[in-house]
């Protein structure tokens, strides 16, 4: 298989009053078509920044991203994003939210009837047909996130970017949506990059897990290939030795190899702001 998406030695600096802050350095990653890749790391390590660069919302200071042989310079619907907090337009119904995307992407290419069918098909994929005429404030958080996913899928993206898509949801809803996502991915064979801070979610869903080191100048620490047969069943896997081993590897990276840096940072911070309550360890 040829490389579908290549992230090549990207680095990014943000200007701050104290001078430039290097958030990412030398991040490289090759992703194949249909692959499901998770980015995991402590909060603040720049995993969202990587996603935003791939989306085109940020420009890398050096290095670049190449999709199907073309360099990415601006955002576009072929790299649809599922945002952390759904980002639906609150004045439009679920249907209209998907419609806005479909009209933009397929306007002129599909007939009105085809577009209607396509919108309904995508809402059906995420099991939201029954509430298609409801506005975001009339449906639950999980349902909003589903509509957000439907909107992204409806753009027929070559890469689906998901920024902690289930982070704001309760555990049961999250499990349910993870299962739906696995189903959809099996059907559509999308390339997916997902940001997560949930180890179980990463192991369950991914083909590869990219573990990132702590910032500043964060980069790719280790890459773990998850060789579990699909379809994966969360209950069966819970006691599967292989699964537990993958899980342990990720946890080891996060809490042994990368913890040290975090701990030193934390100690520095604490000595600076004495008396203030210590911040919680990032999850």
């Amino acid at each position: 298989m040829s490389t579908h998406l290549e992230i090549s030695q990207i680095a990014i600096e943000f200007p701050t009053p104290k001078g430039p802050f290097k958030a990412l350095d030398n991040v490289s990653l090759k992703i194949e078509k249909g692959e499901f890749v998770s980015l995991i790391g402590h909060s603040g390590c720049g995993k969202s920044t990587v996603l935003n660069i791939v989306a085109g919302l940020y420009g890398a200071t050096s290095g670049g991203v190449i999709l199907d042989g073309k360099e990415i310079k601006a955002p576009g619907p072929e790299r649809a994003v599922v945002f952390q907090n759904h980002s639906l337009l609150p004045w439009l119904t679920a249907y209209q939210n998907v419609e806005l995307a479909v009209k933009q992407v397929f306007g002129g290419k599909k007939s009105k009837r085809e577009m209607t069918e396509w919108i309904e098909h995508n809402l059906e994929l995420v099991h939201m047909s029954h509430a298609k005429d409801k506005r975001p404030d009339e449906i639950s958080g999980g349902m909003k996130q589903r509509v957000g996913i439907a909107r992204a899928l409806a753009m027929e993206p070559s890469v689906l970017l998901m920024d902690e898509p289930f982070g704001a949801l309760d555990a049961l809803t999250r499990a349910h949506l993870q299962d739906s996502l696995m189903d959809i991915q099996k059907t559509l064979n999308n390339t997916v990059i997902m940001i997560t801070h949930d180890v179980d979610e990463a192991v369950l869903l991914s083909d590869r897990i990219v573990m990132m080191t702590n910032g500043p100048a964060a980069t790719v620490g280790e890459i773990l290939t998850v060789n579990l047969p699909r379809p994966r069943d969360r209950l069966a896997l819970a006691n599967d030795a292989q699964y537990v081993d993958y899980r342990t590897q990720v946890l080891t990276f996060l809490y042994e190899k990368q913890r040290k840096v975090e701990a030193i940072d934390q100690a520095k911070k604490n000595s600076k702001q004495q008396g203030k309550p210590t911040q919680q360890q990032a999850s």
Partner: protein
Amino acid sequence: MARLITLGVKQLKTVALQPLTKESLARWMKAILLPLIGSVIFLLLWHIGAARVNTSLGVFPGPVIVYQQWQGLVAEHQRERKKEQAFYERQEKRNAKKLAQDPNYVAKVRTYTGKPTFFDQIITSLYTVLAGFILASVIAIPVGIIIGLNKAVYSALNPIIQLFKPISPLAWLPLVTMVVSAVYVSKDPMFSKSFLTSMFTVTLCCMWPTLVNTAVGVATIDKDLLNVSKVLRLKWITHTVKIVIPSAIPMMFTGLRLSLGIAWMVLIAAEMLAQNPGLGKFVWDEFQNGSSNSLGRIMVAVLMIGFIGFVLDRIMLMLQRHVSWDKSVILR
């Protein structure tokens, strides 16, 4: 208006029809009893206080006098309408008669030129304030959107907006009057000069809250929604129509309501000085007239001004409820 009344009646019914429990009693208190008690105490204090204030035009009008003057104004209005009707009937008869004698006769139709009653003046005021308010909105909303979208334009215009915002209508009026007189020269004018002067003064004073609030509403769009727009590669016009304007609508309406309130306050002052035949002129004329009825009639006008201001605000609120997607916003 009619909807307001039916709404009130509905509330009354739902409150009145429930069996008396502690909770329904509490609701009764809140919905009807407490406002009633407040009003009665106010009327009493007014009645007692007014009787103690003597002016050169007699005792300050209390509630009783004001009610009598109200009846007087209603009767005057009805008399005037009857006169008008009689005038037109006479004219029609006369023309019919002449036409019967001479088939080639071209009928002369003259409009009735009686003096405007209190209620005619209310209509004039409403007409003027709405014209001024709509003109202000037509200017303020697009400008607000532009300065909200573009930080450079905002920085350029902000000092000017801040400078013009606090200016009193009375300061604008002489200038507006002179400009209207100089510029609006026409043999057969469609609008009277006093109307235009009042309208432009209203516009100049009331456009600022809409402008500022629209700009703030546009500038504070959720960053995630902007990202959605970028990912979709929306054209700027689609971006503005589908994302910017809807998300600014709640703030826009806050501005529009403030503007309409200011417009109504400004109008009365403007009409007094510009002699536009509305409520402001009514107050001024009664003041100049100085009869024993004047203070009572002015008080009727004062209460009417308050009532109309209240109704205008409610109408805006209903419009906001109807148009705005954000039903969770506290509407008061």
